[in-house]
């Protein structure tokens, strides 16, 4: 009789998440990390990145390293350096502005072209609170955006940075889609199969135990 597998062994994985999109993206970040809009408690502008830890289940901890682009994404030459080695990207658009969706689409194209092949991209419509108050304010229909996301295999969320609605859930969904097992035990991960070694590798640090 074989020994039972120790399912209680704690698991920890850390992922890099980049925020792209319109300038209000930063608020989403604050809402997620601080659960408030209070800019006066801790510094946020100067920080290179913020971290947030999620307990996904009783023995799995996922830590996000969240890189806000600080408006640098407008500089096209620099943008690829931001999302290099990112495990996941949150591309935010404004549900009340059609053009913001187009901008988000161009970011998604660029990410799919230049970022890691296994990057998890979440298309996120912001200002859900405004839309819920007045449906007429909505310029981007949920069906349209969701269909686009499904077509490209992206996650799709509608959130409100102001009220915090759906923020936690969206990050949880992202965490669930990330290759945690691969991080915890790289040998059992996908990397053992066909891997394009010429692409930037985000898991090198785990590849060799210290």
């Amino acid at each position: 009789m074989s020994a039972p597998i120790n399912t209680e062994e704690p698991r920890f994985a850390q992922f890099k998440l980049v925020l792209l999109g319109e300038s209000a993206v930063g608020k989403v970040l604050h809402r997620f990390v601080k659960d408030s809009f209070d800019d006066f408690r801790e510094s946020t502008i100067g920080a290179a990145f913020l971290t947030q830890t999620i307990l996904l289940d009783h023995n799995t901890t996922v830590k996000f390293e969240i890189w806000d682009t600080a408006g640098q994404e407008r500089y096209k030459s620099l943008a690829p350096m931001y999302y290099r080695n990112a495990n996941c990207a949150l591309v935010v658009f404004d549900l009340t502005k059609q053009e913001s969706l187009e901008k988000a689409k161009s970011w998604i194209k660029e990410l799919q072209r230049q970022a890691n092949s296994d990057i998890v991209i979440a298309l996120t419509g912001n200002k859900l609170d405004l839309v819920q108050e007045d449906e007429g304010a909505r310029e981007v229909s949920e069906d349209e955006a969701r269909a686009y996301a499904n077509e490209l295999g992206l996650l799709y969320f509608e959130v409100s940075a102001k009220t915090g609605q759906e923020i936690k859930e969206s990050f949880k969904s992202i965490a669930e889609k990330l290759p945690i097992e691969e991080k915890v035990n790289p040998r059992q991960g996908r990397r053992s199969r066909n891997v394009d070694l010429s692409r930037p590798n985000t898991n090198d640090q785990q590849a060799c135990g210290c």
Partner: protein
Amino acid sequence: MDTTIGSSTSGHTDKANGRVGLQQGEDLENDNFNIKNVLNALSLTSSSNGSPDSANSFWSGSNKTCSVIDGDSAYPEASALARITTDKLTQSGEEEIQKLVSDLKSLSVTDSHSQSNLDLRPEAQQSAQNSGSPVDRLNASKTQPGYSPLSAGICHTQISANYKRHRIVQELYQTERVYLCSLKLLLEVYVKPISIEYLNAVPVMGFQAVLEKMIESHSILLWDIKTLCSRLSGTEFGISPASISSDYELYKRSEADDVTGKPVFISSFVEILEKSAIPVYIYVEYCSRHSRFVSFTQGINIAKYSEKLWSILKKDEYWNLGSKAQTSYNNMDLSFNSLVQKPLVRSGKYRLILESLRSAELSSQVCDPFVLERIETALSIIKQQLNQINQNLYKSINRAELVQRLLGLNTRNRAILSEHFQMPISSSGSGGVDYRIFGDPILCGSMDAIWIESKGTVMHQAMAMLLFKSHVLLANSSGDVKFIVPLSVCKILKGAPEFDSGGLTLLNSIMVPKHFKLVFERKYCIYEILLVSHSLLETEIWKYYMDLLIYHVNGSYKFDFSYSLLCSNTGFRPLIHTPVRMSPITLLEDRFDPKNVIHKNCYFSYVFLISILSNGSDSQEIPSSARLLRLNADDKHAIDVMLGPLRSREFPAPIRTLRRTNRRPDLGFLRSSPSWSSIRLPAALHKTSSTLTLSSASVMSQTSNGDQYSATSSRDPRRTLTRSQSLRDVFRNVFKRTK
């Protein structure tokens, strides 16, 4: 220039037997003394060239050539050797890292480690408070919530501008300290050890030079801010920085009381930011080199370098936050990828800081128009600087990548680097150190290389010659790398008077001044390669760049075997590659047994007469002892085609041969063609032929003085008629163009 190879001040030249030897008992026993001497010599070399410091010479802008070519340490091997020696002596790396980690820990509450725990399990909200995970407990013990007016029930709009300003200034100061600490950690934990292990890696050397400059620049910025605050208030920001984050007193202070509310402070503060926060040239270089450096690190085991850091972090519960379950180092907060990316993000933060400051000023009850204007000006300058960074990133193609594609896929070539760096060759062809290690090639073209192998065999091959910042590579038409020579231990002999020392000697060197010798040292031996070009113009270009890089960038070498001695003493293995059977022209006798094969093959007392067949020379005039060599234009063409886009634009455009399908077309039949004598270029065309983009007839166009090298074997004259007709058509087109 020395005309005697191997002459030096520390040794003596034994002209009786033609070998160079050190004086008896001199220096050989005293390793430390030797190292010191060599290092002193290297530093003297640096200063004698008017380049006191590699980084300084690069950043000063006085030497534009250096900045254009690669911008790396001006004396890479010298500085690398100095580093490796000093590191052995001091071993202070770990203490430095420990100090940085400790500093970072004290600052981290305000920067990247503003962690909070978010348990998404429904039942977790309660249980976390009672029992909690190690993460919860650590968070509870770590988090030091600062005072916030919002938590005190004060309306957002009521918060004073003074408070906002104070927080902004303090945030910049504290995050700048964290940033500086991160840069230093990146340097100490990763970049320095990598550069020591991969001494010749140009991507690493260049990145290190930029990083060190960046640290220096931000240290000055931090110092300036600190000085400003101290000068105005006596202490930092008027009160102790430690108390600011939780000090309710700060909020209660009136704007007039606080130093950050004073116009002179804000004006000086934004002035420092606009002048020192974003040194554009450093950030341009950093961003441009970032990708190549990261690509380089993907070929090596980067986790190995984090061991030292990881061992320090493991001792501290603070840094183990959330990572109890980790079996290896994957704390990304201080991982290589995170640290290396920070400068990319940091440059954008200054704009946000200034925007926040403007917003605070606008909300102030005593808004000073002068101060507001000053902030606006600084903001526009910062934006302009960011634009400059964005626009000035290297737009050129990655030539190092092209070199890798040309040479790096060849198994034999990969074996050269694998053997040197003692890394296994991956079957996929990727991974490990590759030919991008040399950086961007500065000059690429073709030369004919002549050297001596064992038993006096004269070897002659057309080669692709690739000149890098610190090395020159020679590869044959099959793409096999034959020579890798570090420029720091070589010199060029440009003409006939310098060839008096013997060895490879050109008979018609005065008539055909299209050659030079490359002399280099390896393991107490001196080797020479005679390099001959097809045209005077190409030779002059090569000489110019070689001269520049050897004597003004890498620093001249005395050829006193001090380099070999240094390598022996330090265990440093220079990246040199030559054909296995290559014979030296001279060697340090003391180091070799007379029965040694290398000693036997040394040809110092011999003279190899070489005659290059040219248009004006006649084989009857050549002594029978001379080797007659012909340069084949088609071999040159094959090399030029092989180089493709790598071939430098400085050279005349490559000349196509008539028989494109044959890899090595033989145009010798043209000499026996009855139409040959009738086809002569007019004088006007002779002058311009080197600059024309000729689409044909290599036999006539490659020289500016009428010389032409080609094989002279005769072929069936019946075939020549159609060839000569087509040649005539070609020249007709050429004449049309020149008109």
